[in-house]
């Protein structure tokens, strides 16, 4: 009898996802899908709101990386206020960058240490009661302390730039509402111990080393788990450098051949399509030149390091060279290497934060510029989980009439489905029983990409894992929960 396994909701993934795996009569996987079951509302309910409200409103999409939404919307609204991306005052642009790299820092620290590290440290077969951040606190105090403080530091940077650690207001159309006072700068540069930038950079570097060491001891797992070829998309700076705040769109295929290069993101609709599939509320974006079947791509830390030519800070660049050498300069298509890339980005963010803190432009006072108003604006940033698109139209009364958001999780929709399929084929297929460890591997696959389904679907909360087993006729055969 054919069986259908339902895993819902996925734990330690923000939001509500459901995985269904359909087995045929011989217990082989015939189909697997990651469903996003909530409905997305933000694009609808920003309509009618005044355009200057958007950066503050849309950041409510997410509690982990609100700054990304805040800044992507602000970049779009700069255009509406008549200010191009290179037209901001140096103080405004650098304050936004500081905010963004601060958020990258806190989000990457959170993702790796709180959400992903338990899987790596305890293994997929470990009891879920210890395979979590509490387990890390109990077994590795030093690591847990660093995890908390690294994240805290990133949040302090956000506080100093946006006024609040979560859901602040810093960026406004055409600029920023505050500069960085000398006291704020000094507090971030020098302490209170150990929260000074040099310690943070040193810890981030040690985190990369920790992962490399883990990799050397667990090569089989790290290199094979949910590895599959894909295209990769990211913003890069004009000279090919890694840049999270601004740049042109670039995409490479699994072998590193450029599919898109130096594309002005305001033209994204020419290059990116979004496919709707009946079984998911989340769309499936693809590169139009390759079509729906072949055009899907990864975004996020792995994609960014596959797409960029170099990292413009010395310590992260050194790590990047090792990372690149591992795949002989070709794109890295191993899902668990996402964590490696993420930690290199954590290090890079720390280095950029330091550069910015030492820049006297942050104490200058030209905060906002205005130009001739326009009716349409597109803003892209590289959010912690990948490329984030915000696109708005505004009517003559200054009210938003259209919004289109493609969030990182949506960009990674197909890759996450592929990762789940990899687990289904390699771990579940052919087995008669669904073990805890198998379910954990499904989660680990998703978590490598994104702990945040809420940002794609805008639900909140987290629930325990429920597993339900159906036969082909939809009858419930078994139910496991924890």
């Amino acid at each position, binding site marked *: 009898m054919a069986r259908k396994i339902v895993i819902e909701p996925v734990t330690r993934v923000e939001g509500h996802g459901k995985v269904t795996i359909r087995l045929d009569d011989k217990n082989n996987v015939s189909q697997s899908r990651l469903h996003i079951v909530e409905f997305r509302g933000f694009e609808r309910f920003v309509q*009618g*709101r*005044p355009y*200057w*409200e958007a*950066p*503050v*409103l849309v950041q*409510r999409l997410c509690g982990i990386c609100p700054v990304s939404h805040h800044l992507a919307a602000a970049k779009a609204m700069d255009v509406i*206020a008549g200010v191009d991306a290179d037209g901001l005052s140096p103080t405004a642009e650098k304050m936004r960058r500081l905010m963004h790299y601060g958020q990258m820092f806190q989000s990457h620290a959170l993702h790796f240490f709180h959400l992903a590290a338990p899987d790596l440290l305890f293994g997929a077969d470990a009891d879920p009661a210890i395979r979590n951040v509490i387990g890390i606190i109990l077994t590795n105090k030093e690591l847990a302390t660093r995890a908390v403080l690294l994240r805290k530091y990133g949040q302090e940077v956000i506080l100093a730039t*946006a*006024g*609040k650690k979560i*859901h*602040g*207001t*810093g960026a*406004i*159309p055409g600029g920023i*509402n*505050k500069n960085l006072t000398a006291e704020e700068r000094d507090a971030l540069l020098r302490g209170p111990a150990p929260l000074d930038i040099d310690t943070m950079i040193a810890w981030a570097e040690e985190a990369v080393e920790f992962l490399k060491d883990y990799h050397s001891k667990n090569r089989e797992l790290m290199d094979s788990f949910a590895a599959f070829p894909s295209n990769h998309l990211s913003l890069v700076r004009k000279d090919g450098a890694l840049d999270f705040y601004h740049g042109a769109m670039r995409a490479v295929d699994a072998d590193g051949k450029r599919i898109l290069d130096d594309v002005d993101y305001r033209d994204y609709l020419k290059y990116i399509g979004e496919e709707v599939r009946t079984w998911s509320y989340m769309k499936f974006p693809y590169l139009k030149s390759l079509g729906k079947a072949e055009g899907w791509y990864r975004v996020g830390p792995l994609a960014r390091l596959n797409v960029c030519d170099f990292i413009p800070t010395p310590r992260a660049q050194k790590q990047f060279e090792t990372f690149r050498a591992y795949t002989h300069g070709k794109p890295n298509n191993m899902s668990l290497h996402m964590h490696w890339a993420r930690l290199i980005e954590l290090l890079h963010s720390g280095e950029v934060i330091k550069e910015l803190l030492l820049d006297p432009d942050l104490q200058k006072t030209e905060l*906002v510029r205005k130009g001739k108003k326009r009716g349409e604006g597109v803003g892209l940033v590289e959010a912690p989980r990948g490329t984030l698109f915000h696109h708005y139209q505004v009517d003559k*009364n*200054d*009210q938003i009439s259209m919004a289109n958001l493609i969030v990182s999780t949506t960009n990674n929709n197909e890759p996450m489905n592929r990762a789940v399929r990899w687990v289904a084929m390699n771990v579940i297929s052919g087995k008669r029983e669904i073990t805890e460890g198998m379910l954990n591997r499904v989660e680990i696959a998703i978590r490598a990409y994104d702990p945040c389904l809420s940002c794609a679907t805008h639900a909140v909360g987290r629930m325990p894992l429920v597993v339900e087993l159906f036969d082909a006729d939809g009858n419930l055969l078994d139910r496991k929960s924890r």
Partner: protein
Amino acid sequence: MSKPKTPIHFTVDGKKCQAFLGQTILQAAKDNGVYIPALCRWEGFEPAGACRVCTVRVAGRTMAACTQPVTEGMAVENNVPDLQDMRKSLIEMLFVEGNHMCPTCEKSGNCELQALAYRFQMLVPRFPFQFPARKVEAAGKKILLEHNRCIKCLRCVRGVRTRDNKAVFGALRRSRDKEITVDQALAAALPEKQARQAMDRCPVGSILRKEVGFVVPIGKRKYDKEPIGSDVEKAKD
């Protein structure tokens, strides 16, 4: 020559206070460092007695402190539990009667309704949300009217006028159907300073000078540092 002011004596919650004949309870209390919360009041304009948040009790009768003159020997009850709870319930009603989304409102931190909700430690309103269908009037060049947030305090109707004394705002209908209207031509002609004043005059985020939202950073907004009413209470310390 102005008439000499006649001093009188009264008490608020037993505290001995001094005032002048002709002052309202609210003014007199303020001069004595006693804060009586109010939303529709705007110094320098006729009181309206519209919001009733300033309700006090004298000799067992409740009355609006913003309209009631103080008299010799008056014993005013102000900061007592049942009155405070009634005021809190009025604030809650104002929240449920409109559509107030503080997290995304540009008046947040400068909003008197929000500040009072904090002062009264309002968590969840005891009344069901009404979710009224209201509109955003955005066609004007300078002023945007966000009806979802209007608490019908009539400050704008009383206090926003052109240089030749024409009212920029008016009110239609009565009671819960009351709606504020704006003459967008007059509003567009307001000098910049006055347009900003109109925004400040509105206790909530209903009257907005367009395109200035969120320019004041968190930490520098009116009520970021101290709760509403602290200025009155500190003045007499």
